[in-house]
């Protein structure tokens, strides 16, 4: 079938070139995360400094982005991460990716570095670099408004960075449509290092399915499943993700105060139920999404979207803050300044522990409030300083690992591969700990969301305290997720849909010949190529595929999971074996041959 195109933008030379996609790569890696990884693997010089001109910044839609497949609006940012030094692939929804597809492109690749700030303006087959000097220093909301006015089209879509990305914070994100983030692994800093402020896009094309009748039939079934499923049909639309706060807290696996504890007596005060009673003003949907998990909120002086579950936890419980007002305010600041909320919260919580234990000195705070757990004032103030890289905020903007290490105590950084952990305590939920430890992009809950079987009971209930069988579950979830992330569809659909549904959608929508089995094999291929990228960049399994020492040596002090430690040592060897990797986590030649990786 006829494919969309790729744009190659050389910022050093100021050139924009259209190229066809590599059809063989589409067959082997689909698009999005998979195609982006293949492109980076083939083109990036090993050992490249992530913030140098040599790094490449890839925006990759899936072949279903911009289609009428439910939730088909996702794009992925793939690059070498300045936070982890390994592969970054950060996913986002909203409307930007779908607009890029309408303009005729599946992939954008940025190379080099512009001499002065620029933005890329794409209108269908016309694409040009324009001066963005007047926007440099502006937050993501002001930037978006100014660009929509400048291009004279309110229906255009903007992805941009804020001051955090411009100033190369290693936890900076890319924000599209003002409120959606390609959040993790510091992708915003790579954009900033290239002097690329924004990408504005407007398209007029429409999606063309490979097999329109087949797709129609497939979508009828998929929509029915999404509607009838308890999570996608009722739970997420009604409460968004925030309703998880109380569940995880009741389980005693809701990290509190930088993972020093795992249950928070005040969690109800920042729960989804509380949010619904207080600051919630409405729901939002991303492109083509029948679920609508997004939340609109308002404070007295500001409006915005979120906070989502991860943000409520990272900026809330993990910093000991239970009041919603400062959490929402800090969330808005992260979106405006362009910071990843999970890493921002994980960094402030580490700073609070460093301060309370006497390593960060009072004189370093300047006029700022004391970095004490539970202080909403400190949360808001230091989030702003971090996003603007002012005063001590400059150190915070490096992320918790480099911050804690600079004080001689890296153990207070709760990270995997230097990336901050999400909102589930791996001591009380064993499988998710495995998926954090071996995740190719550093600690991450959306590579293999084992919370689904371990906590929610989907597709079946697994005991979160047990390790047996989790390696196989982890591998299957990793593979399926890699394929979904490459298709352009939102991971949330997987509460209702299975591998066969995705294979049908990709086959009928994009003309890639897949069934359930070959879809999972494609996921395996993508995961393995990410691994090869990381190994080439110096990954050492013993050092990098592990969890912070606190989670291996300090038992949960109280609550239902009291006494528990993570036992990743029982799961990782089996996981490697199932993957066809040797005991050092290196894919064997036989496995590479099986996957067709040369």
């Amino acid at each position, binding site marked *: 079938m006829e494919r969309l195109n790729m744009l190659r933008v050389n910022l050093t030379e100021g050139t924009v070139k259209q190229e066809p996609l590599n059809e063989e790569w589409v067959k082997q890696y689909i698009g999005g995360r998979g195609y982006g990884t293949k492109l980076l693997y083939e083109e990036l010089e090993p050992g490249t400094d992530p913030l140098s001109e040599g790094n490449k910044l890839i925006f990759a839609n899936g072949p279903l982005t911009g289609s009428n497949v439910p939730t088909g609006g996702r794009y992925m940012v793939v690059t070498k991460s300045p936070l982890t030094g390994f592969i970054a692939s950060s996913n986002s929804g909203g409307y930007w990716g779908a607009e890029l597809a309408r303009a005729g492109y599946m992939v954008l690749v940025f190379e080099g570095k512009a001499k002065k700030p620029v933005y890329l303006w794409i209108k269908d087959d016309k694409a040009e670099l324009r001066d963005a000097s007047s926007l440099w220093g502006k937050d993501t909301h002001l930037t978006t408004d100014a660009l929509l006015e400048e291009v004279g089209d309110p229906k255009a879509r903007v992805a941009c960075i804020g001051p955090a990305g411009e100033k190369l914070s290693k936890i900076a994100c890319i924000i599209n449509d003002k409120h959606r983030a390609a959040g993790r692994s510091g992708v915003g800093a790579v954009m900033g290092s290239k002097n690329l402020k924004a990408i504005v896009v407007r398209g007029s094309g429409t999606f063309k399915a490979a097999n329109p009748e087949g797709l129609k039939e497939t979508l009828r079934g998929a929509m029915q499943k999404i509607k009838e499923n308890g999570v996608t049909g009722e739970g997420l639309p009604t409460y968004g*993700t*925030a*309703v998880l706060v*109380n569940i995880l807290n009741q389980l005693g696996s809701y990290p509190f105060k930088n993972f020093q504890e795992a249950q928070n007596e005040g969690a109800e005060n920042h729960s989804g139920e509380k949010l619904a009673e207080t600051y919630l003003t409405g729901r939002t949907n991303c492109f083509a999404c029948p679920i609508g*998990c997004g939340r609109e909120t308002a404070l007295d002086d500001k409006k915005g979207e979120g906070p989502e579950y991860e943000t409520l936890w990272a900026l809330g419980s993990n910093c000991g803050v239970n009041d919603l007002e400062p959490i929402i305010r800090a969330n808005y600041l992260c979106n405006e300044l362009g910071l990843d909320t999970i890493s921002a919260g994980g960094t402030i919580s580490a700073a609070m522990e460093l301060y309370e234990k006497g390593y960060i000195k009072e004189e370093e705070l300047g006029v700022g409030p004391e970095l004490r757990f539970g202080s909403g004032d400190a949360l808001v103030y230091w989030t702003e300083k971090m996003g603007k890289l002012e005063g001590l905020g400059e150190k915070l903007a490096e992320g918790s690992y480099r911050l804690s290490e600079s004080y001689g105590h890296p153990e207070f950084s709760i990270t995997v591969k230097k990336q901050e952990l999400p909102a589930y305590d791996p001591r009380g939920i064993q499988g998710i700990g495995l998926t954090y430890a071996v995740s190719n992009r550093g600690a991450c809950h959306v590579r293999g969301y084992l919370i*689904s079987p371990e906590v*929610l009971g989907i597709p079946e209930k697994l005991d979160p*305290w047990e390790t047996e069988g989790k390696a196989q579950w982890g591998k299957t979830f990793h593979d399926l997720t890699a394929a979904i992330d490459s298709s352009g569809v939102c*991971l949330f659909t997987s509460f209702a849909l299975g591998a066969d549904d995705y294979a049908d959608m990709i086959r009928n929508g994009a003309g890639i010949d897949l069934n359930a089995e070959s879809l999972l094999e494609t996921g395996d291929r993508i995961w393995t190529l990410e691994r090869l990228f990381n190994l080439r960049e110096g990954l050492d399994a013993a050092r990098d595929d592990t969890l912070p020492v606190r989670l291996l040596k300090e038992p949960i002090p109280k609550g239902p*999971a009291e006494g528990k430690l993570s036992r990743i040592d029982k799961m990782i060897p089996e996981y490697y074996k199932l993957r066809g990797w040797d005991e050092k986590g290196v894919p064997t030649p036989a496995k590479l041959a099986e996957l067709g990786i040369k």
Partner: protein
Amino acid sequence: MPRVSFFGIVREIVGEKETLISGGDTVGSLLEAISAKYGMRFNEKVMETPERKLDLILLLNGRHIEHIGGLSAPVKEEDHLAVFPLVGGG
């Protein structure tokens, strides 16, 4: 008496966050006691029927009931049951 907490849509159905309920020495009989107290709305929405699977997450003292005997799990006087609708997220 066992303490029962309600969350999400279940909280809206029963109209309160928490209650003390007697009359149940297993999770199953405790659910029946809750059902009797809150009547048809609770019944229709959250009780298992032949047509509809039980769409609840039930934690007894922070453990999912699936791992401690399901609806037959014994309930003691000082126990705490948390009743959640089936939800998800990430």
